[in-house]
């Protein structure tokens, strides 16, 4: 499970602990053994999990993934959809925006705090210079920042109780997602190759010779970066 996802789960659990009567549902798309990642979220305290696992979904790019997740979420009709900041592998930080667009729901990203009341979400959105306060009517999509909370560790009782919680593994067909909407067929991009970024040839190494700070400052002034 991505670290960012645990921030989102923690945020959801805190909302549930404050509000009481609600349910935290984990949704993911992946191979069958991804259920073990979802188990961690169940062990933290989520109520149930739904995993879309289908060979037809393998190779989905963001468009295919969005089609699948939007279908599950349309089925679940949650009041609030929480995402982590970004995945740990591709670091895209766009899936939440694409899913919100597909669902035609408002989206707020980089949430460093989150309150729900009177049918709306109030979020502090972290910016470069401080934060914005943004409100959105529910239902909406919120991507939390990694600074919103410190995710709890699952307790041993939580870990052992997790396997008894409802865990559904569903197929594309059961969601009404056509074969042309997911997997490589439903994707609009194709990865041709992956390479390391080219080495930067124009870097300068400024050694600590007593005047290094002055030389760094002169360089920054020259580039108008001060």
């Amino acid at each position, binding site marked *: 499970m991505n670290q960012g996802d645990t921030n989102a789960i923690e945020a959801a659990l805190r909302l549930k602990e404050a509000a009481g009567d609600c349910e935290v549902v984990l949704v993911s798309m992946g191979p069958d053994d991804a259920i*073990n990642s979802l*188990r*961690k979220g169940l*062990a933290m305290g989520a109520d149930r999990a739904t995993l879309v696992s289908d060979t037809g979904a393998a190779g989905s790019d963001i468009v295919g993934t969005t089609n699948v997740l939007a279908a599950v979420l349309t089925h679940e009709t949650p009041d609030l959809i929480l995402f982590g900041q970004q995945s740990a592998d591709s670091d895209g930080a766009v899936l939440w925006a694409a899913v919100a667009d597909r669902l035609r729901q408002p989206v707020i990203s980089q949430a460093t705090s989150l309150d729900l009341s009177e049918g709306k979400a109030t979020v502090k959105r972290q910016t470069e210079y401080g934060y914005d306060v943004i409100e959105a009517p529910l239902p909406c999509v919120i991507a939390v920042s990694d600074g919103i909370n410190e995710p709890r*560790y*699952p*307790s*041993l*009782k939580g*870990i*052992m109780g*997790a*396997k008894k919680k409802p865990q559904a593994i569903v197929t594309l067909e059961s969601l009404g997602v056509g074969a042309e909407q997911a997997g490589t067929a439903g994707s609009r991009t194709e990865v041709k190759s992956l390479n390391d970024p080219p080495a930067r040839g124009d870097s300068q190494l400024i050694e600590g010779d007593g005047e290094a700070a002055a030389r760094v400052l002169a360089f920054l002034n020259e580039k108008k970066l001060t």
Partner: protein
Amino acid sequence: MNLDLSPEHELIRSTVRDFAESRIGPVAEELDRESRFPYEIVAELADLDLLGLPIPEEHGGAGGDTVSYAIAVEELTRVDASVGVTVAAHTSLGTMPILAFGTEDQHAEWLPQLARGERLAAFGLTEPEAGSDAGAARTTATLDGDSWLINGSKMFITNAGTDISACVTITAVTGEVGGQSEISNIIVPNGTPGYEVSPPLKKMGWRASDTRGLTFENCRVPARNLLGERGRGLAQFLEVLDGGRISIAAMGLGAAQGAYDLAFGYARERQAFGRPISGFQSIQFALADLATEIEAARGLTYRAAWLKDEGREFALAAAQAKLYTGELSNRAVNTALQIHGGYGFMDEYPISRLYRDQKVLEIGEGTNEIQRLVIARQLGLP
């Protein structure tokens, strides 16, 4: 045959490892240097149910199996043996005897607070002049009306003197049967008049754990504090030690893995003669040998835990696991420190602490020699 751990076991490992690395690792050196008992960490362990892991849920524990317990102790010790032994002694030696031999009333009085980790428990067997030779024990308990009058002393006892210690279960001579000492187990609550704990003992390792001498001087506890049958103390503590050896084996495994991981990381960073020392065959072979032996140790330890979970005879497996992991961890910390070179001798490098923490794993809960004795007897040798 299936040697895979369950997804729950894997999640327990990743959770405890994450906790140990992020919450204990950063303070382990300071706790060791100050010989300070880690109350904050113990409170967090309680929140994670790690202080009552194998205790049934109806008594306030997490209801986990022995394999889960071994994994948790292994992962804690991989980072800090003081925390590992605090959990192992509290669970296997402090709480387990009460669970195994206690009455319903004793269960209700002690288990919930111990299994939830609000209080800690200790087991007092060793005396200043009697370790595994329990027949030489001198602490006596005399039934006087409706109470036991206890006199004597205990040595090297873990968890007896913390601010949150609840009780110690001691072995005491309660009479004589056929010319032999009759030994019984008795629960002594902390705070009982006549029961005193010494200042913390100064130790080579396990410095953040609580180790004390205990004295009993006309210490009076109610007759109902007898744990199990009168005269069954010897059989009972042998049974307790059989189970305890699994947790000490898990500590040896964790210590060896921790030392290996430190050496592996250092060998890939440290440059000599123009390349990382991990490129040299002498280092590679040392790490290859350790990795191989650690897997053997893991197999022995988990098998002993699994046998216990299956309700099968596990005394031989536990003694073998304890002996093997004790000696392996000694080789592991020695090799790992050697790979660190001069830096390994410096306090700020964790390997120096692991080196000091290791030795007692070959002594506590039965020395290597006693393990060989137990194993030989289990093999049917006269």
